[in-house]
């Protein structure tokens, strides 16, 4: 029983990381109507920045995280500006999707060039060792607890931002109708830039937490979590902020439990199998809206 609880908590923690990545995916999708397949690579870049500041320059974890947030934000906004924006309104939505895949390869190869292909051993940004409960039978690592707390704080902050602030409302307006949003005086390009900035900053945070929990860093570190977070976002209902959170948590828990109790080789197959089943039953995801025609 205690070991089940232990695994459940690990699943929650991994799921919280997926959730933070999925929030970035889902916001960009919801507002810019595009899948930024390079989102996972923003995580990797953020992690390398932290690694450089903390390990190479001995700069401390908090400065490392802050520098990573700034770098990822700049990369996200710049990528959108030079690679995605010119294709907005292109005849086929595939154009921007393929470009995003191109950006993903570009960032991975850039990291290969700059940092090399060897695995870097990441110094966790959370130094707290955690809690020991039930006479030492239940150990919860500090990074696990911090990850779960951080994801909840981010969820609440985003929900408040989107529902209660002027810029947040502008985002929702752009998500629903860009033309009508323009008529309101909303600068659509600027709103999409802000969305990319937020999503990319979240990627840096996710990178710090991911590499603290699984401290080996390569240029491909972001790829798989990126895809899993995309699955989480679709599972929860793409475009929905609470959906990304629920999807991420579900995915993390399923992944850890199936690794533990079924097979570690099969766990990814199970994760993607669940996605397929959920989409067959509920094509819009758990919290996705049913698209209904309004009379």
């Amino acid at each position, binding site marked *: 029983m205690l070991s089940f609880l232990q695994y459940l908590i690990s699943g929650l923690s991994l799921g919280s990381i997926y959730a933070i990545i999925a929030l970035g995916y889902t916001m960009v999708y919801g507002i810019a109507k595009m899948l930024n397949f390079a989102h996972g690579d923003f995580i990797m870049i953020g992690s390398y920045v932290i690694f450089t500041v903390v390990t190479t320059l001995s700069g401390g974890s908090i400065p490392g995280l802050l520098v990573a947030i700034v770098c990822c934000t700049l990369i996200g906004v710049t990528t959108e500006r030079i690679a995605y924006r010119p294709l907005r309104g292109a005849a086929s939505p595939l154009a921007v999707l393929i470009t995003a895949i191109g950006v993903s390869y570009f960032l991975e190869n850039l990291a290969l060039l700059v940092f090399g292909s060897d695995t870097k051993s990441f110094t966790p940004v959370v130094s707290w060792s955690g809690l020991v409960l039930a006479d030492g039978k239940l150990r919860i690592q500090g990074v696990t607890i911090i990850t779960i707390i951080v994801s909840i704080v981010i969820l609440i902050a985003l929900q408040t931002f989107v529902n209660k602030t002027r810029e947040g409302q*502008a985002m929702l*307006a752009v998500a629903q109708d860009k033309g*009508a*949003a323009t*008529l*309101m*005086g909303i600068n659509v390009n600027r709103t999409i830039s802000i969305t990319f900035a937020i999503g990319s900053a979240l990627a840096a945070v996710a990178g710090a937490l991911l590499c603290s929990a699984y401290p080996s860093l390569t240029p491909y570190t972001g790829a798989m979590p990126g895809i899993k977070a995309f699955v989480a976002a679709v599972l929860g209902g793409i475009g929905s902020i609470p959906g990304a959170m629920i999807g991420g948590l579900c995915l993390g828990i399923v992944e850890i439990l199936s690794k533990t109790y079924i097979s570690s080789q099969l766990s990814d197959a199970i994760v993607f199998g669940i996605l397929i089943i959920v989409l067959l039953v509920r094509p819009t995801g758990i919290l996705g809206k049913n698209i209904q025609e*309004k009379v």
Partner: protein
Amino acid sequence: MALLEVKDLKVYYGVIQALKGISFHVDKGEIVALIGSNGAGKTTTLHTLSGLLQPRSGEILYNGKNITKVPGHKIVSMGMAQVPEGRRVFPDLTVAQNLRLGAYSRKDQAETEASFEYVYKRFPRLKERQNQAAGTLSGGEQQMLAMGRALMSHPDIILMDEPSMGLSPILVNEIFDIIREVHEDGTTVLLVEQNAKKALAIADRAYVLETGTISTEGKASDLLGDESIRKAYLGE
């Protein structure tokens, strides 16, 4: 000087020319109707005025200022608001949130609150439903919301694109009454309609748009009496 003046406007969708050089003007305090059948270019005209489309050539002057190249999001703060075709309210947002977005371009909080009061007074139904998602409103209520949202910017001129489309005769009358009242409150109106009879009845002047060209213009009362207009647009 006209409040709004359009000179030789040409607009293309790719290689298709939707506006073939149209010119017209709206004076302060007028209701001007722009009528024409489906596909004539009415919506294209309003989209170009609001900066959602860029013209290939021609000029748009607003208060004498050339606004042809002003980006769309800067138009509403200059005093020109639009009630778009098909209402285009933000369906997942509440009525109140939609209205607040209508005042997005305004800085002064007190003025925004005053506009809320004005809009709720004019549309009591919107006040009753202020916390309801806009997508769940009826067609007539959505039209009122789209109008209220445009009024939240306290515009000098309001562009309306087929506000009576798809509504029952009773609601059509109600909408036209509201247009008249909004005009009496001091707002200039450029009204695009397929319901030519109703539009000409409340307008001062009118232009007839035919496949991207203005074919007829004149006093609304004269057009109402014109034989060929009656045949082509009033179904007589």
